[in-house]
Structures are given as C-alpha cells and as structure tokens.
C-alpha cells in the first residue's frame, strides 16, 4: 500500500490502476455529491478535482473508544469504490487494521510522521483521558495525551471521527471517571474536522475525506462538523414530520399511533436537536434508520447525548427544561420553524428561551 510507485500516483491514477473506469468513478462522485447535498451536476467537478488529488498519508489513532467507528467504516459498502478511495489514501498507521504489531506498528507511525511531516492527515477516534496524567489509556507505554500531542504537531489537519473524539462521547458521560475530553480541548493550533456520530455513517467518514481531498478544509458548523454532511436536521428531513405537524404522536411503542408510523417525539425522539445525514443516507446500505425502524433518534451526533435526560423522555420534559439543558441544545430552532440563522448562537439566551416557549406551546396544543 505504501510502495514508492503508489505513493506518487494521483487518486485518479490509483483508481484506474485498480480497474475503476471513468464512468465507475463518476458514479462514486455522484453518490458523494448527493451526500454533500450538492446538486447531482457537481459530480463532474468533484471527479475532476479528485482525479488530480495526491494520495495523502493518513495516520489513524484510536484512543478511549469501542472500535465501533472502525467497525462502521469497514462494514461500509466494501468492496465498493468507497473502499477503494480509502485504499487510494495511504493509510500508514491504524492499530486495529494494520498487520504489524508491537514495535513494528509504532515504527510505522513514527516513520510516516517523519516522512510526511506537515502534510499528513491525522484521524482520531476515541476521547482522551486527562485525569491522573492520562494513565487510564496508553498505547505502547505512551499516554493517549502524549501520543495525540506528538502526532498533531506534524499534521496538516485532524479529523476527529466519532462523538468520543469530537465531544468526549460515552467516556465523558457523567460522572466521567477518567476525565475524558475531546481532541479540540487539547489541540488548539490545527484545523479540526469533527465527524460525530456513535458511530458516524460509514459513507460520511469516507465522504468527509473525499471532500477534504477535493475542496480542502470544509465549511464547519458551530460544533466543528462539515456543514455538507451535518447541515441536515433529522426532524426537518424525517418522513414522519407530517405527523408532527398534524399533532399525531405515538404515546407508547405498541399503541395505534406507533403501528401507524406516527411521530415519535413524545417517546423521546431527539430528531429536533440532532444534525446528521441518517434521514436521507440511512444505515445498513441504505436500508433504514432508527426512526424508520420505530425508535426515536437518540441524538448520537450531538455533544453530551448520553446525558440529555433520557432516551425515552420527550425533549420538552428532559434537561431541555432547564437553562443548562438549553445551553446544550443549540439548534432546536429548526424543529419549530425558527430560521437557521439562530443556529449556533449559543450565547443568545433570549433566543433560546423563545425556542423553548414555542416548543412548549407546540406540545401544549397537541395535548
């Protein structure tokens, strides 16, 4: 994968060496354009840019995590073109996927860092424990904290894959025994792209890398996520939204409303405060997503999703009822027709109070 010849190839050349035709490449670019919410015609522009892009070195560090993000990636549409794109990237270190172990594995990381200093993409999954000098998670005798700082120093950009790397995730859930934090709380001098989700959608992981190679650093939302993939509010894009508008809600998981596919808001659906591509891209090769399978969204791509007051508590009854909860939930506006201009304005207490009041009124009207 890292032979000199392959290193010098552009992505287009590497794919053609793998037997991918131009039309096959265009099909991938069309799917990528769709993911980025770009018009289908943009596929040609993506193809032209990716064709010429150089294959970057990628170092993937796994810290305090469950390997779900890597599982998600590898269970993608393999061996599809997304897989080939990943092959077209020079993945120089990934301790779960690489064949080398022990000193050999660490030597590969050190060599890649030295050879591509200033140019490699650092991918991180998992949070970083800070308590007691970071002793709660170590690799080859090095704390995650030390390894992150060392690898970040020579990186062109960092991609924080999964909610743990992006926002602390489960390890940081109350009472956070290891003092787990997100990458962005440690590294302040490098561009960081958060690809949140527990895990993120497989094609979103590869799509963000493709977007980075095509257009450079993407435009990010106020939580550091690429807007192209996380610009969609689950509630706004939910096919059950018409039931919300009509005030038709499932009250339990086995009542008439649930059987008829009504809105799951009252059963704790976090769709209104969650930004992700699940409602359109879906999971398991486009088969379904939680709401389509009859369960509310748990908001796994948002910070502190584990501590949001309970998966089965309606948003209007959970922690959102408190000022603290509202501060955690920037972006509820889209749920009730407040424009996206309010999104990201976490400091605007008045605006949030207005959102909360409207949400309560909305729910009151349905009782």
């Amino acid at each position, binding site marked *: 994968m890292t032979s000199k010849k392959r290193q010098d190839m552009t992505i287009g050349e590497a794919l053609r060496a793998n037997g991918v035709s*131009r*039309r096959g490449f*265009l099909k991938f670019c*069309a799917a990528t354009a769709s993911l980025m919410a770009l018009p289908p*015609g943009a596929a040609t522009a993506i193809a032209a840019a990716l064709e010429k892009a150089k294959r970057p070195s990628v170092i993937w560090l796994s810290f305090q995590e469950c390997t779900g993000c890597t599982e998600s990636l590898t269970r993608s549409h393999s061996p*599809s073109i997304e897989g080939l794109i990943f092959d077209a990237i020079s993945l120089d270190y990934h301790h779960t996927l690489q064949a080398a172990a022990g000193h050999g594995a660490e030597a590969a990381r050190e060599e890649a860092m030295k050879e591509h200093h200033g140019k490699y993409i650092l991918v991180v999954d998992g949070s970083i424990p800070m308590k007691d000098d970071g002793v709660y998670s170590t690799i080859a005798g090095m704390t995650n904290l030390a390894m992150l700082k060392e690898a970040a120093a020579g990186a062109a950009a960092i991609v924080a894959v999964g909610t743990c790397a992006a926002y602390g995730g489960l390890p940081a859930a109350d009472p956070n025994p290891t003092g787990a934090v997100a990458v962005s709380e440690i590294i302040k001098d490098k561009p960081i792209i958060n690809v949140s989700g527990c895990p993120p959608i497989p094609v979103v992981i590869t799509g963000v890398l493709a977007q980075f190679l095509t257009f450079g650093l993407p435009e990010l939302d106020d939580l550091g996520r690429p807007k192209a993939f996380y610009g969609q509010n689950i509630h706004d894009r939910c096919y059950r939204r018409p039931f919300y508008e009509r005030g038709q809600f499932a009250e339990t998981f086995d009542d008439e409303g649930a059987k008829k596919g009504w809105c799951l808001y009252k059963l704790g659906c976090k769709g209104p405060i969650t930004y992700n591509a699940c409602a*359109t891209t879906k999971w398991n*090769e486009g088969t*379904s997503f939680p709401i389509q399978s009859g369960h509310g969204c748990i908001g796994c791509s948002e910070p502190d999703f584990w501590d949001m007051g309970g998966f089965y508590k309606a948003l209007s009854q959970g922690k959102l009822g408190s000022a603290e909860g509202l501060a955690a939930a920037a972006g509820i506006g889209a749920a009730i027709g407040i424009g996206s201009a309010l999104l990201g304005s976490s400091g605007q207490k008045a605006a949030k109070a207005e959102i909360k009041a409207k949400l309560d009124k909305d729910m009151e009207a349905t009782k």
Partner: protein
Amino acid sequence: MSTDARLIDIPVISEPAMTLPSMNVEPILHEVRHALRRLLETGETSMIDLRAMPLAPGEEEKIRTRLGTGEVVIQLDAMGPSTLTETAYSGVWWVEHRNPNDVVTGLYIEVAKVPSIVEPDRQDLIDAVARLNDDLENNDDE
C-alpha cells in the same frame, strides 16, 4: 444461511404497511414537468436526486409507477451495474446506480435526451484512438 447472504435476502419489512401522507410525489412530478420544458426550450438538462429527499416508504415506487416505462433501457457495467430506463415520457430517465454488491448507491430522475454518464469522456476517446492505433500497427493477423 450461507456466508455470502446479503442483507436484502433477509425477509424483514422494516416498516409496517400503513397509509402515510404522500408529500413528495406530486411536487417531484411538477419538477419533472418544469425540467422537461427547459430541455425543450433551451436544451438545459436536469437531474433530481431522489436519495437526497426524505421520501416516505412507498413514495419511490409511486413516482416510478406514475412515470411508467418507455422504449429504451441502457445497462452500464462500471463499478457495479447501472440501469438507465426511459420512462413513458420521452427525455425523462430513471437512473439507478448500484455498487459491485448490488446495493443501490444512487437514484436519480434525469431529464435529458441521453443520460450524461452514457457519453464517453473526451480523454476516453483520446485513449481509444491510441489503443486502436496500437492494435492496428502491432496486429499482423490480416
């Protein structure tokens, strides 16, 4: 179950049969009509990405049925099969791309005389001339 079983082979229906309000069928058909007029009047082609829309279960089939089937079906074999079917409305194509695992990766309605992916790229034509030249110069069969 054999080890190469695919998800699609598992007989599970993820959504019970139910009557959902159909929000997308009529607007999409109107969009197709506008696109057809543009094609006729200015030659401008259009593409509607059905996967970028929150279609309710059953809506995709409804749109497909309403558009019907025309005379032409084009099959591509490029990183998985693709089927480009002319609908009952000339110039309106139902475009379905699949990956090598036969999973749908793209679903579009394309409004054009011929779907854009069918036409060869200029670079492919240049390569084709070079390869054919090479073949004629080096093949002594005739």
